[in-house]
């Protein structure tokens, strides 16, 4: 059974039709590359899955149960974690504070609960190590490189036992060496059984880690096939419209 199933998802913002009848599935231990030109509806689709807004029509099923999310926190409780394209970090806080944002660890008794700095720093440190990032828990996000910020945003998704991980352009703003790290990380997470949706513009990235590819054009799905059955040339054609459908 697929961990996530989207059926006939349609989303309109006023008069603009962002998505029209998009259906797709996602299995455990699978990376789906979601591709498309600017404005094709990739981010909208990912944000619907992450609970930023509900679809206008269509159903979302997780582990066989239909659900409706109105807030990202609800999606998170259902085991869906997302890394936004702009990363959604607080520059004025430390790496550890960002990792635990909204899920701070506390200790105490009765009505008194103090932030557990020690535990959060230790856990964040372990996560960064696992991600092979040199980020330190006490570092301020404002002073970090793109790759370090990315690590903080991804570390945040590793706090809970997520089953679905959504990555919106995770390699867009980082160096080549860091891209390799992020792609290795995606493979490791897939091997741990996570279902991953990778939104990306970068053809080489998608072809190196994805198992399947879904192409959107002007809000509609125009391809959904195994990566081994496709090629960068075909995908480029699908994205631009040179190839109508595959």
């Amino acid at each position, binding site marked *: 059974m697929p961990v996530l199933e989207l059926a006939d998802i349609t989303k309109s913002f006023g008069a603009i039709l962002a998505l029209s009848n998009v259906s797709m599935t996602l299995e455990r231990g699978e990376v789906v590359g979601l591709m498309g030109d600017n404005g094709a509806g990739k981010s909208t689709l990912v944000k619907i899955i992450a609970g930023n807004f509900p679809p206008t029509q269509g159903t979302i099923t997780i582990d066989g149960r239909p659900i409706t999310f109105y807030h990202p926190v609800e999606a998170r409780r259902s085991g869906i974690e997302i890394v936004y394209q702009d990363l959604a970090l*607080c520059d004025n806080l430390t790496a550890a504070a960002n990792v635990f944002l909204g899920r701070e660890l506390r200790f105490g008794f009765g009505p008194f609960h103090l932030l557990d700095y020690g535990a959060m720093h230790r856990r964040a440190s372990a996560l960064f190590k696992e991600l092979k990032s040199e980020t330190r828990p006490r570092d301020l996000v404002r002073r970090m490189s793109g790759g370090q910020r990315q690590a903080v945003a991804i570390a945040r998704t590793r706090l809970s036992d997520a089953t679905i991980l959504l990555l919106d352009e995770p390699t867009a703003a980082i160096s080549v060496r860091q891209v390799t790290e992020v792609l290795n990380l995606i493979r490791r997470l897939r091997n741990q059984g996570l279902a991953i949706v990778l939104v990306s513009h970068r053809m080489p990235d998608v072809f190196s880690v994805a198992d399947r590819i879904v192409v959107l054009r002007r809000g509609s799905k125009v391809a959904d096939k195994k990566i081994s059955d496709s090629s960068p040339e075909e995908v480029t054609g699908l994205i631009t419209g040179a190839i109508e459908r595959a």
Partner: protein
Amino acid sequence: MHHNGSPRRADTSGPSSPSVKTADHMSGMVETGVETRTVGPLSFLVSRQTFWVFVAALVAFVSLSLATDTFATQQNLFNVTRNFAFVGIIALGMTAVIITGGIDLSVGSVLCLTGMVLGVVMNAGFSIWAGIAAVCVTALIIGAVNGVLIAYVGLPPFVATLGMLAIARSLAMVASGNRMIYDFGPDQGTLLAIGGGNTFGIANPVIVLAALALLTGYLFRWTQWGRHVFAIGGNEQAATLAGIPVRGIKVAVYMISALTAGVSGILEVGWLGAVTTNLGQSMELAVIAAAVIGGANLSGGVGTAFGAVIGAALIEIIRNSLLLLGVDAFWQGTFVGSFILLAVTFDRFRGWLLAD
């Protein structure tokens, strides 16, 4: 500023310990317990600004002690510490507001309104507890209205609280018929003792300030709520996505800000022994100046409780020294205003340095 021309009650304080010791002791306490170090290296810079402001206050203090024989008297030091307590208490609430990226222009008027509510209630023969309860309810309602207008209706904080600035002062005039209240009924003695008296030689408002500074520092540094206040100022969108109750917290900080104005109002009325409808006029300027000089960043995300206290102290020392040095009181606004500009400019430079 707002103290000018107010009738100052003769101080009944007995031998007070030199207030510089008080300030030192307090800052030491507050620094260890309260400094908000949620932000690693930046807090180093922030605390450095706080540190330099502290040094400036100290230098002003020492040079004034040497240059005049009127400054370093027990009486004057007692007055200085008490005077900055009124501003400092509200600066704590203002700092919370500023950290979320907001501003509260209504605090001076809220101080006046709550002082008037206290006066009217006690004047009618009710106990001081009834008066204090009425002050708290009034302040919390005003703060809640500010907060809801900002967080739910979406008005800019500047606009919402500017409106409240006019409304609260007008309500104070309505409540009192624009007359002075100096008869506080059966509990008058208690009220005057709370605001004008001292404990162990330290003015009561200073003790309240120290307690509230510790409480604020604790909230900022050690609670999830405080962490979320900083997160909202850093990236409101990210805070919302992380499931932080952004609107609720915004309403709360404006309620806290108004409440600190109410607390300061009770103390100031107790000290003055009278309430008039020009109480707290343009006080918001001094309060915002204290917070900003103390390192709070008007674009949000940065600020400390200790900074608010030190900022208030520096302003009062400058103000007091101008008086003692015989500078025309008309110049005070120029000095305080220049200090705000200086602090914000300093902050800008810091931003550029960090960006590089």
